[in-house]
């Protein structure tokens, strides 16, 4: 299947989007960033592995059902140390794209990932994940084999690890399909990468009931690295070569390497139990809310007929 690309929005749409996006970046900048995050020539997981590792052995299969080419897992030699690597893999030509299922993992992928997480834990080697997916694969077969529980268990397995873990959002990070391998001690994000609860097309289809309104959705979500950093969702923004990572993949990998080694060095210095505790704290802090006094809450909450109200809002 082809990820639906929206037609270029008219001037009117762009004007509204610009108005909605407000500071600090305007809608067209957000949209340009999304195009860069999805650029055909952008380095993918295997491109980074080839440049970061002196040796890499890919591991296949979940030992339960099958192997998922959309999620690459393996062990590699990184700065003369062993490291476990997990990352979604997209394809460049039609054939590879189909083979990699557009980087949309199936339950087998997440179960393979959990197998490699367990391996890292047992052998006490750090885990690096590379996030690049429009989301977990939506399909009846994936549902039958437990896509939901594969993702939740992957989140749980990763959050429990005692070894150092670093996640790098290298391209597109959308939905639970991305987060399943994103519960790390340090989360890094490339300058032009995106990280969001849903792809702009998906959001447009649901909130605006029109996939063509992706630009508008992108402006509303502002899934940019700068925002994710401001919200505390990522710990550092990794700069890209001028014009984007696809202009110079070697330089892009070199920049990732610098941040990654620093993060791993910091994490190695912590006691192993401490890493798990701090990671749990890190994720528990995310997401602001308000708390009003209990009497005001009691006043506000009249016991109506809650179920007669119908929400027209499906969610991600």
């Amino acid at each position: 299947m082809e990820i639906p690309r929206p037609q270029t929005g008219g001037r009117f749409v762009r004007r509204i989007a610009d108005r909605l996006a407000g500071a600090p970046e305007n809608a067209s900048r957000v949209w340009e960033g999304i195009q860069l995050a999805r650029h055909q020539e952008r380095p993918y997981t295997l491109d980074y592995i080839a440049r970061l590792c002196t040796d890499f052995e890919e591991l296949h299969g979940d030992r339960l059902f099958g192997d998922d080419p959309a999620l690459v897992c393996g062990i590699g030699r990184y700065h003369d140390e062993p490291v476990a690597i997990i990352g979604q893999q997209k394809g460049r030509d039609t054939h590879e794209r189909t083979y990699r299922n557009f980087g949309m993992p199936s339950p087998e992928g997440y179960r393979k990932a959990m197998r490699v997480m367990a391996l890292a834990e047992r052998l006490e080697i750090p885990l690096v994940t590379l996030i690049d997916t429009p989301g977990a694969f939506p399909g009846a077969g994936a549902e039958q084999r437990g896509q939901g529980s594969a993702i939740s268990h992957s989140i749980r397995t990763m959050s429990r690890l005692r070894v150092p873990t670093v996640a790098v959002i290298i391209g597109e990070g959308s939905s639970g399909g991305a987060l399943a391998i994103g519960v790390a001690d340090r989360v890094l994000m490339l300058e032009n990468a995106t990280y969001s609860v849903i792809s702009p097309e998906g959001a447009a289809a649901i909130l605006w009931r029109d996939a063509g309104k992706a630009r508008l959705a992108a402006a509303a979500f502002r899934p940019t690295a700068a925002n994710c950093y401001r919200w505390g969702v990522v710990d550092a923004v990794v700069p890209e070569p001028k014009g984007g990572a696809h202009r110079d993949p070697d330089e892009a990998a070199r920049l990732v390497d610098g941040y990654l080694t620093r993060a791993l060095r910091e994490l190695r210095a912590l006691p192993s139990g401490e890493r798990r505790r701090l990671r749990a704290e890190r994720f528990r802090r995310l997401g602001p809310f308000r708390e009003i006094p209990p009497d005001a809450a009691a006043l506000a909450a009249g016991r109506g007929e809650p179920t007669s109200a119908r929400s027209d809002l499906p969610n991600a």
Partner: protein
Amino acid sequence: MNRVNVSIDRLRQLAHRAEHRPARIPADERSCPRCESHYSAEEMRRNFRVCPACGHHFPAGAHDRLDQLAGPGGWTELWPGLRAADPLGFYDLKAYSDRAQDAEAQTGLGEAIVCAELEVRGRPAVAAIMDFAFMGGSMGAVVGEKLARACDHAAGRALPLLIVTASGGARMQEGVLALMQMAKSVIALDGLAEAGQPVIVVLAHPTTGGVWASFASLGDVIYAEPGALIAFSGPRVIEQTTREKLAPDFGKAELQLHNGQVDAVVDRREMPERIARVLGILHRPQRQQPPGAPGPVQWAQEGAGRAARAAQSIPGLSRRLVDRIRPGHDGDGS
């Protein structure tokens, strides 16, 4: 259910419908979308909002559910003052802050989840109940925080946690911060697991997206209400993205039971009984050891002592071997 049962049910439905069909529907009556029977609101409430004729499960609000599980007044709400913030300044067809306020005015709920301390048929527990009427039961920072507090509260008081889900998934209006609530809720649940307390999850219609793919699928026991849609990707998303033609029972509780994704499909009217039963099975009196009771170490020694006595009774077995089997301090003399 076999063919005969289905047709008998169908006949009953038709008979019921014929008896109950009024000329015009009075304002306080509802009609069942499946069998078209009509009921008064009071009749619906008494029957846990399940159609008495065909068993269709109507949506139920969080407060209704608490009344069903614990009896009216049998529960105390926890943290009712938590409200959503608007970190993105989000606007789709309407501003998020307005949407949340409207939802509160419409539903009388502060958020899409209500936490409470309660007793289900005499079994104490902490409950976290989602309500689909509040913005599609979507999970934002407040839902994440209330779940986390519920886990801590249950762990601190050594109580089991009972969760009822009814949600379209992560709340889009909170963007990537809503996505983070998946991690937050899973991690919070893990804290409860470490405290040795069970989590019972009841999946109501619908439980999809980021809620199904986080805490909802991590219950120690997972029940589903009949006909509930349980899926990571809803049918509309699948049909739009992959053009796959889906079967009419796609993602339905009964199919998910067949798929091995839930433990049982349980009628809402039987839910309090079922939950109380599980809580009863898993209930543990205080874990303090009475003085002089055999601890685990002594247990192993008893086993070794038994092995040694058995060895002694075998003629011709050397004394040395018996000594090797028998522990030094097993307390039964030498």
